[in-house]
């Protein structure tokens, strides 16, 4: 069960591209692989039948989300939710389908409902009834972040890392919030915690390298913020070794090289940005695109 869950959530997270959001901040990342269960002792409050983890609709919806078809997952998730209106897992699946469509404001109340519902289930039953429950706060954090609720996002991420101290992407989320709050020291500390949750390898083939690249890129942002441009370049370069397709970081490297007076390197970095965009299907085509 845990292996299935981990794989599914990793796929769901992995299909989230930072560039999908205009603000450019990465969406949900890979959840912790060895998440301990929280120690809630609340009793179950529902007499409703429960959607088992293997419920076809839940499985189908989650698979559609994982395959980057959240809009197709939404009606399935809504049907599941209608069948089990009081079950937090149904709310979670629906929330996730909305989240992956970037309808964050719509997703937030369902994540909140899922979180509250999960906390009301006996901890012994929770792992069976709602195996993903420990990660709800993580997704809630990003959904709140994308609706501009920084305090709420920080709170959700904090509750996730309290339950799962090795949840690197929620440490990363805390860092992103702190950067937006201009709390540079707190952001740097959170990034260190995020980095500590990840393997050392920065090679692109490493399965966690993308997460590492995200963190290193934010460390580069902090260096740039402090006018340590060369340090920023070094960090961005490390980030790109970990995740060469992170085209936004190529753009940042170009910005740095321009500032350092190396326009040749800057132009090279811009070519790499375009190449990376092409690789991930996010072509910077300016006016030629098809949607707003």
């Amino acid at each position, binding site marked *: 069960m845990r292996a299935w869950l981990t794989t599914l959530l990793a796929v769901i997270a992995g299909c989230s591209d930072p560039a999908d959001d205009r*603000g450019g901040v990465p969406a949900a990342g890979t959840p912790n692989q060895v998440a301990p269960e929280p120690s809630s002792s609340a009793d179950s409050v529902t007499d409703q039948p429960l959607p088992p983890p293997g419920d076809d609709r839940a499985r189908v919806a989650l698979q559609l989300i994982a395959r980057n078809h959240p809009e197709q997952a939404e009606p399935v998730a809504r049907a599941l939710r209608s069948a089990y209106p009081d079950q937090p897992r149904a709310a979670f699946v629906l929330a996730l389908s909305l989240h992956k469509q970037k309808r964050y404001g719509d997703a937030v109340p369902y994540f909140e409902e899922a979180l509250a519902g999960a906390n009301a289930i006996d901890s012994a039953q929770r792992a069976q009834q709602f195996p993903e429950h420990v990660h709800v706060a993580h997704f809630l954090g990003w959904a709140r972040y994308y*609706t501009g609720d920084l305090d709420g996002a920080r709170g959700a991420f904090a509750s996730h890392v309290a339950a799962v101290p090795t949840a690197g992407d929620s440490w990363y989320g805390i860092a992103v919030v702190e950067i937006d709050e201009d709390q540079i020291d707190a952001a740097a500390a959170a990034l260190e915690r995020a980095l500590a949750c990840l393997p050392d390898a920065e090679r692109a083939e490493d399965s966690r390298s993308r997460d590492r690249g995200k963190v290193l890129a934010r460390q580069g942002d902090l260096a740039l913020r402090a006018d340590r441009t060369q340090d920023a370049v070094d960090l961005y370069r490390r980030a790109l070794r970990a995740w060469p397709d992170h085209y936004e970081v190529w753009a940042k490297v170009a910005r740095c090289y321009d500032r350092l007076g190396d326009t040749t390197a800057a132009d090279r970095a811009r070519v790499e940005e375009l190449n990376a965009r092409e690789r991930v299907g996010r072509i910077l085509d300016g*006016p030629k695109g098809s949607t707003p």
Partner: protein
Amino acid sequence: MSGFMVVPAMVVRAIVVCSVLHGPCMAQAPAPAEPARTIGFTDVTAASGVHASMTSGVQPSSHILEVKGGGLALIDLDDDGDLDLFMPNGATLVDPTRGPGARLWRNDGGLRFTDITEASGITHRGWSFGVAAGDIDGDRRDDLFIACFGRNALWLNRGGGRFEDATDAWGAAGPGGWSTGCALADLDGDSDLDLYIARYLSVDPAKPLAPAMFKGQPVINGPKGLAPLGDVVLRNDGDHFTDVTAPSGVGAVPPGFGLNVIACDVTGDGLMDLFVGNDSSGNHLLVNEGNFKFSERARHLGCRTNLEGIEQATMGVALGDLDGNGRPDLHTTVFSSDTNSLFLNRADGFWDDRTSQFGTGAPSRSLCGWATILADLDHDGDEDLFTVNGHVYPNATKAAFDSEYLQPRLVLERKGNRFSPLRSDAAWLSEPHRDRTAVFGDLDGDGDVDAVIGELNGPLRVLRNDHDGTADWLVVSLRDTRASSRNHRAVGAMITIEQDGLVQRRWLAGGGPFQSTFSPDAHVGLPGKGSVKVTVRWPDGFEQVAMTEPGRRLVLDRGAP
């Protein structure tokens, strides 16, 4: 005082800003004992005499031509020292060339205006977007240029409240297509006002466009997928314009979806540069190289995209010196699900996206922003941000797009080195509209910054700033009455105001918040008690220093001995 009160600002803020942000250029000053400063406005439209709707197609919008709305202009048409109001107005898809017509109001003082459209002779009825006000023909009367869908228009001020259509005489009609924001500025240093016209895209109003998809919902098509139009620059040759788009280098710039332009010397070399906010494509920074040559430098200097390298959907642009380094910084408003951007203009010429540092991003994420201004709304010695908002898609909802169609205004109060959203249930702030454009200036002569806001297919609204009326402000107007000058309002001048060690700077720039005009006057709040030193760097580089007291309207004449 009507209106409302908000969280009081710290009276020592100016000193905090001085010591934290402004660095060595700022001397320490004692904290003055002052009452709490507040930001508050009252909607005085009903009594103002400004009763008009800004037409732009019909509701609900179904075509991209309908969603941008038109601009507004502040113009001292009779040179009596107060700011009159002009709305070029739009039209409809049925007949884009014949809308309800432009409107002109004379400022009678006390935020009361009289509609003088008919007497003015202005019969303009084309579908208008941007507008610029300035003395184009050098007769010391401010004229009006209107950027339109189709044929642009030039109305010269003939005095006595009369205007004359000089479009053909001046060759001002332009190449057609969809013109948007425009700016008057002396781009070649010959003292007359040249004209930059941003242009948007190519579209046929008679042909419906298939819907595009956004977040899984069908929405109005564009701009992506439609052909952008290149901007146009016209040189003022005394009695006519000459199209210098090609020789200036502007014609070689790959076109974006231009919506707004400001003209200001952002590089500090004494030459007027141009910043063009482009929708869904990278911004342009046209650096003035002299001899009417421009080079597009936004990509290499860092203001083409935000920090993430995202080409944003830029609409409005505000200008101010946020870090106290004496160089104008920029605030740009963008589409929803993105954040407005704040670009600091560094001493080394590069631009830094410091949106996070100043806290201006997160509060804007759910909003689709348009006109924006940096102005000291509470007179505490720093500039606050006022932004008007409203979505372009009538089907926008929080559930579908994380953004409602009707949206409240956003006022961000500067507190130290951060901006904080002003929270209030007061209607002027919280009532949702589909606002687009705005102009800001001291319209009633009481020393604070008032506003007129234009809503898409909605009324103009006049907002009175309810600052408490204490003499903690200064308004500076410049006049260049030398016979050799045709830039009599000194567009391009930089004004430095110092009081008790607090240094503030203002620029008299071309263009405006969104398809509208900046006030021709400079306003500052003065939290201190001492005398005020005013240093003007005129457009030709000449520096003039004057001393004055707070609570005054200072008119400085370049031609005076």
